[in-house]
């Protein structure tokens, strides 16, 4: 038994790009206990909903996070539309779904790059981000924003995407699939990567359930927790199965995300094939009524819960976001216990933390 040392990890650390602080109690290089603390980027965006018109608020909601921004915008607008009992044009729903899947591919490629970086595999990191660039380019071309798409508005989307562009979006993947397969081969077959990922950070199905894990963390432990199965937007018209792995280790979580990239490609192609013609937005009349609504969406990082409470005015009475990172922190603490110090960044990343989402 070695001497116990406390290593302060974060909130500013070259590997951990998120402002999360962990006090790691280590014994030699074994982590005995991890104690999280945060609160460095709390911006009070929930409170801001009381000061911003509900029609303007999607801009703020999208800026809760820089990676899954589109799903935040989508969740907010869906929540408001449900609260106001609006039925938005079907084409708008399809466009939102297509962009949501683009944002998922973007997020997963970004995450894979960061994982490679945490493993000290720089060329793989750069290659993932090189692939991601193509996704961002087409999103910028169609929505006007690379990171914050700005597509979702209450009642629809901001601009239509014409048929030739949609066809090009679908065709984009015929060229990109080879790239995806290449990185899939590296992440899942490379000896050094495998050596690091396999059997590290195992989370059993029971633990994942008890600790309320969501998204790829839960899916990696064998729980098919995928909010898209609720069929919001047009997911009920698309054919897909939740990706599930049973091992529960970092390798399983990586596999889930890689498979989800391929799944998203399929979903985008299905949606583009099915998209009907028509309007993409509707005029909003009236105000959010007195009432409340819960909206669950599957963000790239996992399930997000939106709660809106209207009071009959332009401003919401209460707006609440619970994103996936918040729900996955207890699972993170569980997998950090007993791990090696060298695995800490990789394990923290394996839940794909986004602290600015979690703190809002």
């Amino acid at each position, binding site marked *: 038994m070695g001497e116990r040392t*406390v290593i*302060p990890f974060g909130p500013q650390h*070259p590997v951990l790009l998120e402002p999360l602080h962990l006090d790691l109690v280590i014994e030699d290089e074994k982590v005995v206990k991890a104690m999280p603390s945060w609160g460095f980027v709390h911006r009070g965006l929930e409170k801001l909903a009381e000061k911003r018109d509900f029609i303007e608020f999607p801009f703020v909601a999208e800026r809760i996070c820089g990676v899954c921004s589109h799903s935040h915008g989508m969740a907010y607008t869906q929540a408001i539309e449900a609260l106001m009992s609006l039925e938005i044009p079907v084409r708008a729903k399809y466009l939102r779904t297509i962009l949501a899947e683009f944002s998922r591919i973007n997020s997963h490629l970004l995450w894979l790059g960061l994982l490679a970086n945490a493993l*000290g595999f*720089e*060329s793989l990191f750069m290659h993932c981000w090189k692939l991601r660039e193509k996704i961002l380019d087409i999103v910028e071309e169609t929505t006007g924003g690379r990171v914050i798409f700005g597509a979702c508005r209450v009642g629809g989307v901001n601009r239509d995407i014409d048929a030739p562009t949609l066809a090009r979006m679908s065709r984009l993947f015929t060229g990109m699939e080879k790239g995806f397969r290449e990185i899939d081969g590296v992440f899942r077959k490379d000896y*050094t990567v495998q050596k690091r990922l396999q059997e590290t950070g195992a989370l059993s199905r029971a633990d994942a359930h008890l600790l309320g894990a969501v998204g790829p963390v839960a899916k990696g432990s064998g729980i098919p927790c995928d909010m898209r199965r609720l069929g919001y937007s047009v997911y009920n018209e698309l054919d897909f199965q939740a990706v599930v792995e049973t091992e529960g280790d970092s390798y399983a979580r990586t596999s889930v995300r890689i498979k989800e990239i391929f799944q998203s490609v399929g979903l985008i192609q299905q949606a583009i094939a099915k998209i009907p013609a028509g309007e993409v937005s509707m005029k909003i009349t009236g105000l959010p009524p007195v009432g409340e609504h819960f909206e669950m969406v599957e963000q790239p990082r996992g399930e997000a819960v939106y709660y809106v409470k209207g009071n009959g005015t332009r401003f919401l009475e209460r707006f609440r976001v619970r994103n996936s990172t918040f729900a996955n922190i207890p699972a993170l603490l569980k997998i950090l216990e007993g791990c090696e*110090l060298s695995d800490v960044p990789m394990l923290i990343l394996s839940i794909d933390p986004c602290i600015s989402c979690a703190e809002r």
Partner: protein
Amino acid sequence: MKTVLTIVLFIVAAPLAGGLMAGLDRKAGAWMQSRVGPPLLQPFYDVAKLFSKQNIAVHKSQKYYVLCFLVFVILSGALFVAGQDLLLVIFALTLADVFLILGAYSVRSPYSYVGAERELVQMMAYEPMVIITAIGMYMVTKSFSVADIAAFEQNLFVKLPGIFIGLLFVLTGKLRKSPFDLSMSHHAHQEIVGGVLTEFSGAELAMVKIAYWYQNVFLLGLVCLFFASAFWLGVGAVMLTFFLEVFIDNNSARLTWQFTLASSWIAAAVLGMGNLVVLIFI
């Protein structure tokens, strides 16, 4: 007189060569990663900038340890080019490393501590293989003197292929390349930040960097020694080795210290000892 000139030439030219190598390393690495990369002379700009920085020493003794590190690295290189005893050269380099580790231990920073511990593990990992190299060279040339080994008319690689490959294996860690860049990585994207170098800054860090340039030149000189009978073959081998290390760096993730230790010893036992055993029986 000739020896003195050689030593002076080494002291002057080695950092230039080492710096250029570092630049080339970064450039080649960038190309492999589809990036443009920094200018070739960037390492020199970096060091010049580090010298101009405000000097903040966390602990006073740090400075002397770093100075000792630099001096002993230069000394080991100088002994090498002067054609002295190979074992002396190897132990002088080990001593230099010990000073770096002491420097890392002299501050109370957990990152620095863990880095120093890992540096010790890395020393344990590569030292057997380096000593086997010296023994192998002795068994072929019947001398530990670098001058005699260099003057040996036969190509050492022909008789020591296992040892050569084993040396390349541990060199990955010594040149701070993935998968064995445990204690300190050039990219600082590591769980222990800069590892042993976490608490060095300004002029001290610049000195460490220069020491690494000397050390890399010396290590590649060791590679060259295998091909000393044919100079251009030696230069080719050095270039190939260098490219191979950059290539491996861009092709693997960082591994754990347990794996580094085990695999280095296995490499030393199988490739190194195997080669020695073969040498005894032929």
